């Protein structure tokens, strides 16, 4: 059993991860553009082959069909990229300062308040232990002090819970950004790798791979990261459950949400301990930020010259 209310590990600083996210998206966009450029460069050869193979004196549709299929793949890639970028811009970016601000409340308020209470608590404890006052009156006076000590003990616990009340959401929100940066940064590297891959007779293959990867990223962004399903939501649920548990809502010393008064009506015979822990950091808190989709390049083969044969539907 822990000896005190657990709070999330204090990170030295928490800053907005928006610059990192923007940087990752910029890299991803550059990687997509690299794929597009590489595919378009390669497509010149494929278009000529399609024209030579299928076009006659009276028609040149094969080249158009070939390039149109390639364009569809490129558009799909950019559509996924834009969906990801727009999703970040509209859904996630507005919360870029949530983590840092909540964390600041934790460090600047609750941690400090806890530090301020500590010496006061120690002082009252010391006063309760003083023995230079004796006699019935002094006994009655000092008999009240353990109650005050217990109250301060419990307040300390609640301050720790309040700290967790902002720090856990702060870390979760920050973890969402971390996950996004991880995802976008990883996708950028992956797509950049596609750009440099030799694809042989598979035209627009790079963009097809990128589109597949980006599509998986978008699905993960919408279905997991922003909804929290399978990522941070279970951790948040556990946090809320603890914040609303009876150990938090039902004080043992500060009963009735009232500070005990040092009156003779106060039951000082056996003051209950207020030092029992009231909160434990959710187990998965430290792993949420590592969430990222596992993407692949999909099963698309890109566009071949044969796809430009007459009768093939335009993409």
């Amino acid at each position, binding site marked *: 059993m822990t000896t005190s209310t657990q709070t999330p590990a204090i990170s030295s600083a928490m800053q907005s991860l928006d610059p990192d996210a923007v940087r990752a998206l910029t890299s991803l966009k550059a990687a997509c553009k690299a794929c597009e450029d590489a595919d378009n460069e390669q497509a010149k050869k494929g278009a000529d082959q399609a024209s030579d193979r299928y076009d006659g004196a009276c028609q040149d549709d094969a080249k158009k069909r070939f390039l149109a299929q390639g364009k569809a793949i490129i558009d799909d890639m950019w559509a996924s990229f834009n969906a990801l970028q727009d999703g970040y811009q509209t859904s996630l970016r507005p919360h870029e300062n949530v983590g840092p601000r909540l964390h600041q409340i934790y460090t600047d308020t609750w941690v400090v308040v806890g530090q301020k209470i500590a010496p006061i608590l120690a002082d009252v404890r010391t006063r309760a232990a003083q023995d230079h006052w004796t006699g019935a009156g002094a006994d009655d006076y000092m008999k009240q002090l353990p109650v005050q000590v217990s109250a301060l003990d419990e307040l300390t616990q609640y301050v720790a819970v309040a700290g967790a009340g902002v720090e856990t959401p702060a870390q979760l929100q920050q973890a969402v950004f971390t996950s996004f940066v991880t995802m976008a940064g990883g996708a950028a590297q992956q797509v950049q790798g596609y750009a440099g891959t030799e694809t042989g007779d598979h035209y627009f293959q790079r963009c097809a791979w990128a589109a597949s990867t980006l599509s998986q990223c978008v699905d993960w962004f919408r279905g997991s990261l922003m909804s929290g399903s399978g990522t941070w939501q279970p951790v948040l649920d556990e946090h809320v459950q603890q914040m609303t548990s009876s150990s938090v809502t039902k004080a043992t010393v500060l009963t009735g949400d009232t500070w005990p008064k040092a*009156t003779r009506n106060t039951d000082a015979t056996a003051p209950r301990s207020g030092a029992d822990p009231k909160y434990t950091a959710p187990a998965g808190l430290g792993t949420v930020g590592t969430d990222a989709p596992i993407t692949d390049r999909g099963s698309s083969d890109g566009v071949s010259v044969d796809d430009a044969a007459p009768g093939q539907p335009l993409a």
Partner: protein
Amino acid sequence: MTEPRHEERVQESGVVGHSYDTDDRIGDLDIYEALVNPHEESGAGSKKGGAGGPMMMPMGGAGGSGSPSGSSPVTGAPGTSPLRGTSAASAGGGAGSAGIGGAGVSGLGGAGFGSSGLATEGLGGPGAIPGLAGGLGGGGSSSAGASWGAPTFGTGAAGLSDIPVDVPGAGGTAAGGGITVPTIPTTPTPPTSAAPGPTTPPVITAPNPSPSPGAGIKAPTVPGGSGGGMPGSGGGGGASANTADLGVKTVTASPEMLHKEAQHWDDMARDFEAGVTSPVGNQSPSSVDFGMMKDAFVPYDDLLNRIKKWSTEGGAEFSAISDALQAASGGYADTEASNTAAAQHSGPNIPE
């Protein structure tokens, strides 16, 4: 008067008088009453302590207790002494006036009553000097005075004078004879129960204090402290004597100690306000602040509001404790000063 060797005031069980050897020892101080009732509007320890201030009781009241058997010019008739006594003294006076021998004993009883809750400390041995004993045994704190609502409360202890007195006829154990007040013993000396003087059981006119509701009287710890006294122990002081037999501990306190303690709580209250109440009170979050984690807002906000309330009340409670202690300290000191002045004023009445 000799100079005090130290600042400490001590009330000890078994005190039979007052001595220049033990300067300025005073009766018990009802710390509890001053402390624990800061919220009781009609109780003893109002926060301002005014009610707890030492109410005045002519020491003559106590002195009068010895009049039936004594002839001490010091003690005089009830109410003639300008010295302030405690309500204990009043009680003792009442008891003593019933004719129980030993004005000093009557003072004992008075102490038991006046201390109202700490009467156990108001012990005096046989032979306690009427008037002086009343003051010595009194020690009813300011809060005690308020709680009982008696008009004659005060910290009779302050009414002590450092005068070795031979009080002819004042001694309860030596009726009609002079008693040289012994020095205060360092260990509690239960008063003898051999009541001197009349063999007729005393008719004790016990005070009938009607504590206001909520008044802080620790009756359980003060057997007989209501001033009823114990027949046979002399005056009304028997009750207090019994408390000594029960092994009630000594109260050691002084205005300086109380003031220091009060100041400490005041400092603590200020630190608490600055370090806890204020920063917590400045928090006013909204669900927007929690971004995507808005589910966490409501439980946090609920807890925050509770902590705001606790911190406000906690700081106020520390201040209340400080005020109560300060009131006790101030009232105590005031009474001491008044009694000192009164004692000096009445100096010519004291035999050399």
